[in-house]
């Protein structure tokens, strides 16, 4: 099995364990969308469901950020990643993909149900799902940069969120523009730019932190 797959498997497996974060992010996501549904009422929710669910997804992933690299840093796994003959960037990519699979896919799975509860009709559900699928990997990739920046600092959680949130804004702007073709293309383009960038930047930050 390639190192990429080994790290990917381990990341997903650990996220679904107790305290791993996968169920926490899903629960948070459900709570936020539900609160907005009750708070905004059916007509407003119908018009803004896409934006609300996107913001809920962003905020939920923030709860998983402290777990991204901190555990690996504490138990010495990050150190060992640096000592593998495989480039660190590939292992970081595996971690990002693993986090997406563990944190985001459960949220995507419940999204159609939440959308129905929010009084959204069938065709719009499809558009919202496409938006979430395209925007979410970028969100995780940017989150990886924030998590790597605060490695080793004990109270990094808030700082991570503050650093990462401005980076989320372009994603949110395009995600909220109700699924027009151009917006989808932009989101896809952002993903192709953000993922390699996040791998390189996160790896560099990890190397510095292990010095």
């Amino acid at each position, binding site marked *: *099995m390639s*190192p990429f797959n*080994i790290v990917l498997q*381990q990341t997903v*497996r*650990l996220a679904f*364990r*107790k*305290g*791993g974060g996968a169920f926490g992010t899903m629960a948070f996501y459900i709570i936020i969308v539900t609160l907005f549904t009750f708070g905004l009422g059916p007509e407003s929710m119908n018009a803004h469901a896409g934006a609300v669910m996107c913001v809920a997804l962003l905020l939920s992933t923030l709860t998983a950020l402290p777990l991204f690299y901190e*555990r690996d840093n*504490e*138990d*010495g*796994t990050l*150190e*060992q990643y*640096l*000592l*593998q*003959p495989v480039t660190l960037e590939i292992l970081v990519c595996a971690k990002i993909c693993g986090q997406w699979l563990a944190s985001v896919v459960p949220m995507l799975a419940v999204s159609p149900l939440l959308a129905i509860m929010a009084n959204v009709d069938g065709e719009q559900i499809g558009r919202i799902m496409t938006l979430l699928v395209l925007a979410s990997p970028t969100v995780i990739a940017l989150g990886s940069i924030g998590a790597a920046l605060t490695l080793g600092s004990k109270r990094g959680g808030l700082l991570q969120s503050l650093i990462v949130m401005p980076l989320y804004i372009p994603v949110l702007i395009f995600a909220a523009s109700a699924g027009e073709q151009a917006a989808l293309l932009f989101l896809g383009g952002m993903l192709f730019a953000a993922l390699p960038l996040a791998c390189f930047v996160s790896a560099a930050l990890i190397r510095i932190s*292990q*010095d």
Partner: protein
Amino acid sequence: MLICENIECVRGDTTIFRELGFCLQEESLLLLKGPNGAGKSSLLKILAGLMPASKGQVLWHDKPITGNSDYLRDLMYIGHKSGVKLDCTVRENLEFWAKLYDTEMLVRAAMQFFDLTGFADTYAGELSAGWQRRVALARLIVAPCKLWLLDEPTNFLDDDAVILTASLIEARVKQGGIVVIASHIMASGIAAHTLYMKDFQHESV
């Protein structure tokens, strides 16, 4: 063959050691001796490539170790952080390494050697520090590396485990490996070269 040429280590404003050099052939064991803060851990990190030396270079088979993936393949480093995932079982921890090195058949032997078979499906986080250290050391059996860099491997270990570790190191050396170890405990019994960190200290220290 591991060669250290004129290594200098600077942390912040302090030079921890300078002009440190040695040459280790196959079947060698090098003991690093020195008080706390002498730079044993730093030297091991420099040898592992985790930290750059401010001067000098390290050569593995006559090639510099920077960017050398053959070196990383031959190397196993166990530092203060054990590299054991607390949320995984003992078996899962060792299987992670076994998958990386394609040595799934060695997992059972590794667990048997350190008496971990009974704990195979226990989460590492539920074990005491000493047993977690055994899990960390068990990967030395699972990963067939020629060069071992061990920083205080016997931390937390009880007497039985110290003897097991010593025999493991002796076996590795006899089979042609090179082991560099910083340890307060391990000394007599295994023929070893000793490096005293104080020989390379900066004058003002």
